[in-house]
């Protein structure tokens, strides 16, 4: 409605008034002329014209403005009513806003992560294609270069297929230290398929993606800005990439990081050893765009046929290799169905339900208090439809304000979560409250408000006016309303217990991780990754010499207080080895695996961890004849319980595939290692992702000598930039060594705890909100009962009831739903615990202590919520209430 229209409506209303007034005056004059006294004439004129208001209504009906005007008036009445009941409005809006805010936040995150997908033109036609090995337990794997080449030539129904492979790339150019950045080798078609345009320069052409083509590279905007200060003249200049001089031909705009968070791209043909790759080296990913006029199923069926032909032609490498395709992006996020994250929206819906129950209780309570008002309105001619409409408008108003607040809450929540996950989500992901989420939020809010507002509206509109007036607002529908509110409160309490139960388990689980992390304090510790130049690592001696020099340089540097080499950082994964214990023969396939970490002699000293027993490594350890190991406390508990670990001998056999496949490659010269003597026992430092304590074996770095190592460094108090000190130091040790990933150890710790933290904080938030909402609900219900029964209390007290008895009366009534709620809630909580089992760490799914504590907490909160209004009831002055009517 425009302002103009409203003004016109107002003018019309004035005109109507004036017109009828004029008519009335003329009638009066006529009657006066006929001899009536002025007063009698006026009365007669009114009789002639009939009731003015219905007449006006009839005129308005003709105009068709009545509806809009009535709604507008209802809105004004609703605003006035809500302003009058400020507390009711505030609590209802806060309840609904909290419930909706939580739901909107969770749904926005889930939507962004799993459903919104890659933005852009027909993004649903973008596929990620890999293969599935039907043999060998159906392992999912990538695509080999020869297969991809054949697919590209023969498969129909696609705009194009483009293979890519992620690789860390080293950049160097004059005057700047070598830097290692996440990059990707991509087929020239990639940018066309993604509709990605460069910020400046150009993208790859097929000519660039040809063996022997002049080397070229494309950079991301952040890399271009941070390293080259956004110099536009960089285009056309050569920089060193992996030791090759490559021309920068383009810069991609900010926010482009295909396929994950890549910062630089080179043509696929530039990938070393690509041409030599055999059919069973399946390391490439393939991006595909289905043609607009072809269905996805048809295109994939065609591709599957091509793969089938290859399997017939190359049975020894391709038998059983099938095509596996998902929407692009889904290969990174997985699907929601198999993730425990699915629990979050379920829980959010529970919170929303609790909030809705609250609003329903509040509306019911309020409507009960308004029976008299409604009865009066009905008796002066308001139709049932009018009353329902007015109450619905009131609810809608609440819903709209609540969704506004909820949107703000959700935006803040989503921002906080997105911030925590920065750097861990793919480039295309837009973790914000989306338009879809907003629309859904407002819709749900209005639906909830109308549904929960309508029940009281309908029950009120049925009000028999005369009876309600006679009863002075204590209508016989009141007990019915009370029954409903009790049901709502029971449901709320049950859901609250479920949520709090889940929150309790997850909090305990997170605390377990937190507790385990207290062994190492990451503050002040910096980590980095050092890689030796491949050309100088031909022999073990050369590698040993490099590590020795590095160790000595670290020890000698005046700005560094302590430093160590290690093959794996605390809090992160370490590759597993098969374990043998001397004197404990076990068949090889049942032998356990243990994470194994190669460390420098100063490892524990740098982390400020003291050994529990024995000693750490000296520089001689790891040399032939000095094969030693340190194990952690957990190792002793698991494998050598009650025994003296020192002096026992263990053996670690050929590297087992590293879990999650991302550990630094450890070269292993002998398939079966030598027997190692345990010389020390260390406290248990948490290693894998948020897992519980695991046995870990530490070996001297000299016995491993991998191509790359991690550094953990503690700077001296007065060192301002330890990172810079490291850069000059490593360059001094070997100018062609690559130093990368300089970041605080706290980052590793934080990232490794993200998931349990997310779960614990989300559930904690849900639980607290649920508890608060339930308390408010119970309070509102009891307060309503007190208001409704004030007269009864007055009578009771007049008849001699003591205040304590009155308090107990209302407590008993208010706590009625508590028993039901508790019983169902505890059952639900145990069920939820089972669902959560997969994400729990060192916490059992059914935790009686937590449940009992929660029950006590809930009873306490409920008692308080009932006690306040009950106390007010006991303060009733009997004389006053009896005089009230």
């Amino acid at each position: 409605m425009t302002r103009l229209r409203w003004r016109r409506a107002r003018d019309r209303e004035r005109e109507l008034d004036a017109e009828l007034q004029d008519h009335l005056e003329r009638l009066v004059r006529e009657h006066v002329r006929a001899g009536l006294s002025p007063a009698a004439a006026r009365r007669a004129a009114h009789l002639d014209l009939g009731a003015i208001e219905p007449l006006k209504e009839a005129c308005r009906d003709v105009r068709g403005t009545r509806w809009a005007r009535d709604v507008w008036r209802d809105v004004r009445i609703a605003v006035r009513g809500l302003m009058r009941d400020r507390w009711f409005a505030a609590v209802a809006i806060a309840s609904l806003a909290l419930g909706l805010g939580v739901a909107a936040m969770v749904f926005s995150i889930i939507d962004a992560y799993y459903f919104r997908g890659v933005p852009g033109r027909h993004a649903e036609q973008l596929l990620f294609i890999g293969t599935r090995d039907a043999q060998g337990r159906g392992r999912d794997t990538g695509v080999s270069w020869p297969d991809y080449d054949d697919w590209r030539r023969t498969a129909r129904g696609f705009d194009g297929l483009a293979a890519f492979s992620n690789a860390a790339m080293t950049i160097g150019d004059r005057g700047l230290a070598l830097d290692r950045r996440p990059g990707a080798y991509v087929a020239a078609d990639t940018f066309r398929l993604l509709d990605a345009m460069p910020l400046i320069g150009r993208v790859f052409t097929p000519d660039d993606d040809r063996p022997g083509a002049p080397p070229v590279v494309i950079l991301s905007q952040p890399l271009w800005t941070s390293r080259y200060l956004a110099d536009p003249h960089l285009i056309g200049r050569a920089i060193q990439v992996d030791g090759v001089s490559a021309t920068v031909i383009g810069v991609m705009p900010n926010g482009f990081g295909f396929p994950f968070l890549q910062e630089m791209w080179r043509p696929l043909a530039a990938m070393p050893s690509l041409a030599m790759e055999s059919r069973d080296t399946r390391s490439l990913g393939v991006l595909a765009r289905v043609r607009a006029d072809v269905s996805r199923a048809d295109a994939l069926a065609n591709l599957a046929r091509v793969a089938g032909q290859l399997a017939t032609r190359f049975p020894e490498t391709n038998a059983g290799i099938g095509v596996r395709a998902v929407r692009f992006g889904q290969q990174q996020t997985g699907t929601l169905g198999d993730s425990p994250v699915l629990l979050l929206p379920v829980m959010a819906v529970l919170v929303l339900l609790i909030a809705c129950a609250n609003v329903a209780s509040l509306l019911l309570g309020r409507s009960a208090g308004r029976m008299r008002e409604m009865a009066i309105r009905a008796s002066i001619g308001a139709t049932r439809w009018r009353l329902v409409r007015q109450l619905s408008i009131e609810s809608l108003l609440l819903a709209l304000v609540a969704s506004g607040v909820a949107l703000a809450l959700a935006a803040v929540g989503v921002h906080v979560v997105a911030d925590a996950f920065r750097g861990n989500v793919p480039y295309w992901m837009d973790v914000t409250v989306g338009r879809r989420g907003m629309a859904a939020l407002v819709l749900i809010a209005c639906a909830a408000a109308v549904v929960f507002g309508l029940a009281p509206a309908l029950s009120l509109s049925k009000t028999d006016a005369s009876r309600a007036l006679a009863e002075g607002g204590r209508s016989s529908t009141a007990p019915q309303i009370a029954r409903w509110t009790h049901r709502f409160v029971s449901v709320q309490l049950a859901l609250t217990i479920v949520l709090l139960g889940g929150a309790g388990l997850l909090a305990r689980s997170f605390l377990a991780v937190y507790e385990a992390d207290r062994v190492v304090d990451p503050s002040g510790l910096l980590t980095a990754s050092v890689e030796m130049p491949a050309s100088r690592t031909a022999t073990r001696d050369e590698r040993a010499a490099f590590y020795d020099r590095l160790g000595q340089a670290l020890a000698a540097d005046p700005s560094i207080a302590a430093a160590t080499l290690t093959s794996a950082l605390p809090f992160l994964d370490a590759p597993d080895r098969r374990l043998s214990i001397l004197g404990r023969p076990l068949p090889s396939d049942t032998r356990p695996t243990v994470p194994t970490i190669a460390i420098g002699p100063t490892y524990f000293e740098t982390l400020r961890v003291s050994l529990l027993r024995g000693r750490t490594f000296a520089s001689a350890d790891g040399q032939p004849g000095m094969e030693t190991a340190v194990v952690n406390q957990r190792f002793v508990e698991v494998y050598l319980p009650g025994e003296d670990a020192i002096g026992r001998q263990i053996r670690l056999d050929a590297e087992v595939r590293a879990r999650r496949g991302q550990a630094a490659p450890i070269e292993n010269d002998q398939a079966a290692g030598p027997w190692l003597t345990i010389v020390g026992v260390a406290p248990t430092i948490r290693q894998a992702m948020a897992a519980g304590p695991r046995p870990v074996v530490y070996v001297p770095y000299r016995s491993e000598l991998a191509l790359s190592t991690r550094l953990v460094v503690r700077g001296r108090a007065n060192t301002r930039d330890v990172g810079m000190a490291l850069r000059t130091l490593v360059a001094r040790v070997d100018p062609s060594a690559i130093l990368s990933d300089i970041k605080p150890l706290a980052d590793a710790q934080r990232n490794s705890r993200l998931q349990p933290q997310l779960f614990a904080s989300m559930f904690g938030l849900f639980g607290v909100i649920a508890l608060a909402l339930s308390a408010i609900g119970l309070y509102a219900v009891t307060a309503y009962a007190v208001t409704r029964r004030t007269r009864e209390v007055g009578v009771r007290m007049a008849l001699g009831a003591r205040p304590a008895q009155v308090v107990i009366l209302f407590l008993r009534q208010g706590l009625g739903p508590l028993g039901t709620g508790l019983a169902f809630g505890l059952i639900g909580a145990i069920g939820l615990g089972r669902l959560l089992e997969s994400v729990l760490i060192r916490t059992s799914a059914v935790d009686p202590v937590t449940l009992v504590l929660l029950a006590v907490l809930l009873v306490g909160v409920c008692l308080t919520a009932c006690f306040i209004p009950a106390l007010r009831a006991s303060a009733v002055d009997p004389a006053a209430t009896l005089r009230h009517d």
Partner: protein
Amino acid sequence: MRASKADLPQGTLDLLILRVVAPGPVHGYAIAQRIRQVSRDVLQVQQGSLYPALHRLERRGWLMAEWRSSDTGRDAKFYRLTVKGRAQLKVETASWDQLATAITAILHHPDGAAS
């Protein structure tokens, strides 16, 4: 006045209003008066239905209203026919005449409707 002598047949109020307004601008009260006077007090316009009818005709574009000063010294709302309204009056008058003639013919025919 309440004792009406003849109620208006359904749908004829619009026609009467259009006819009364046809000579020139006139306000609501005068319209009611005029109908009563011309019909020699036989036809009685229900005051409650006059104004909704006026507003309806105005909305249909058959009448146009303007405020002008009147004999009472105050502004009154005067209605007059629009071109569309004049055409409508013709159409409705014709169809009323037709109807009236037909009804009269039947009522006054010696054999009644049986012929």
